[in-house]
């Protein structure tokens, strides 16, 4: 049969972000495919080397756009590991609240993104409205809607404002009630369940071959492989939560885990608000001048569980006022690049967009 070239993106309603999937198709079936990344390349790793440690805090949230806080957290923990800096107790809990709110917002965006490839736009509208409420809470806490620059080296920038606990409680209670509705609209919706059930499977051996982490991995291997549980950072070892898993990884199972993770995040936030102690929220590194402080020589890798998998900064310092090298391990690197090349062939054209959506591929963190 004749092979035809087809590309999905960069300007395509079913594509998330500015990346392009190039496919060689035979009829409906993909024969060969690969991702063309690099359209969001900004040279972050080079720019971080040229800026002071403090300046970098304003640069790094831009690495991953839907969930910017993981960048701040990863950068801060990596630097704290080299500095051997102890963060105040309250700051850990505030960080967890911020990270879990960000996880809910990213999951809602990804879950609503299902509306694009399946044509179920009601779901998208609902999810974005709820996400907007999270952005409002962020605006109250940090002053910005999307790029917060809130988690800094040595704690968080400022304490929580008065009365924010009530706002968060109202929101998460409301969201918890609506999760049932989300199930009905999305994964249990008869009009799209055929598209997402038993399609784009991810077997266990493929997970190990690609190096997929996050929801993709947990949905296939049936074990709670979550960085929050396995290598706990902040105070995740002091809260109780479950890691939803499954042993049959199709698009529906992965979306199901997304909804369950939102539920778990709500439980974590409730515990954080209850257990959070009073006290200072930030310590200064106290090495040199107020802005031009230094970090001792050292190497550190700081893994964080993002909504898409293990996200981490590899940081090298040579004792200067700016980092010597910062490498970003994007969580969607394996499934985005190698997954599309090796695993998409054999599936149908319309499954490509679903793969991108349910595996959680975020193109800015692939390109940096």
């Amino acid at each position, binding site marked *: 049969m004749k092979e035809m070239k087809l590309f999905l993106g960069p300007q395509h309603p079913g594509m998330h972000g500015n990346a392009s999937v*190039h496919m060689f198709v035979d009829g409906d079936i993909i024969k060969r495919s690969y991702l063309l990344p690099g359209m969001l390349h*900004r040279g972050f790793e080079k720019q971080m080397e040229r800026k002071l440690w403090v300046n970098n805090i304003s640069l790094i949230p831009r690495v991953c756009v839907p969930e910017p806080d993981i960048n701040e957290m990863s950068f801060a923990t990596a630097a704290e590991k080299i500095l051997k800096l102890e963060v105040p107790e309250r700051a850990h809990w505030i960080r967890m609240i911020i990270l879990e709110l960000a996880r809910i917002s990213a999951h809602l965006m990804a879950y609503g993104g299902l509306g694009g490839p399946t044509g179920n736009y009601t779901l998208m509208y609902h999810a974005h409205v709820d996400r907007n409420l999270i952005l409002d809470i962020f605006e109250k806490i940090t002053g910005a809607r999307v790029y917060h620059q809130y988690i800094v080296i040595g704690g968080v920038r400022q304490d929580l404002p008065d009365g924010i606990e009530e706002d968060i409680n109202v929101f998460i209670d409301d969201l918890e009630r609506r999760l049932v509705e989300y199930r009905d609209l999305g994964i249990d919706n008869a009009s799209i369940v055929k598209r997402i059930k038993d399609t784009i499977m991810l077997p266990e051996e493929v997970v190990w071959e690609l190096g997929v982490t996050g929801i993709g991995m947990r949905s296939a291997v049936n074990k709670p492989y979550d960085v929050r549980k396995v290598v706990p950072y902040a105070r995740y070892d002091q809260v109780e939560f479950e890691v939803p898993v499954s042993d049959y990884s199709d698009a529906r199972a992965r979306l199901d885990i997304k909804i369950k993770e939102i539920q778990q995040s709500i439980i974590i936030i409730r515990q954080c608000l209850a257990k959070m102690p009073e006290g200072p929220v930030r310590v200064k590194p106290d090495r040199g001048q107020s802005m031009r402080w230094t970090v001792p020589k050292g190497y550190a890798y700081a893994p964080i569980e993002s909504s898409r998998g293990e996200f981490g900064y590899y940081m090298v310092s040579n004792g200067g006022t700016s980092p010597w090298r910062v490498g970003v391990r994007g969580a969607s690197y394996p499934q985005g690049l190698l997954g599309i090349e090796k695993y998409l062939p054999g599936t149908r054209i319309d499954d490509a967009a679903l793969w991108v959506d349910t595996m959680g591929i975020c193109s800015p963190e692939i390109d940096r």
Partner: protein
Amino acid sequence: MLSTKFTPKNKMTKAEIDRKWWEVGDYFRRNSLWLLMYCTGCCAVELPPSMTSAYDMERLGMGPMATPRQADILLVSGYLSLKTLRRLIYTYEQMSEPKYVVALGSCPINGGIYHDSHAVINQLDQYIPVDVYVAGCMPNPESVLNGFVDLMEGIKQKTMNGWKRYHDHFEWYKENQKNSLGEVIVHDEFHQ
């Protein structure tokens, strides 16, 4: 006896008739703008809130459009790396006229936070004409919508004629594009 045939005293010239038709066209056009969804950068993450129920762009008569040939507005949402700029120029040239360019964020204005980056251009209006800039990193949905209201007002005042500038200074734009990009044509494994 007067003729039954209607003959106006001052016959309108062709240019005048054209102008009238443009005015009528502009009236309808500015009240139903179709927006090309090309999410070039991070400002695109504020577009879903402004498009969905929270800020509801559709009350201004605007909606997203998937193909460039039927869209009126090219929305440049954020920084442009060289690789994107190449595709953006493709997309811009595919759009049918009249077409308007709205640039979000501070990066298309002067490079923003990426002013010294090796991959991000500093000034968008060197390569394609820009009608409305919305400053901010990133601009709120309110300011995004305000930018569109400005665009509508500008279409009414006939100041949004970037696409005419692109015709008039085509050589200048092409030269700038070539200086920065090397060549505008995409060369890769797929396009051979």
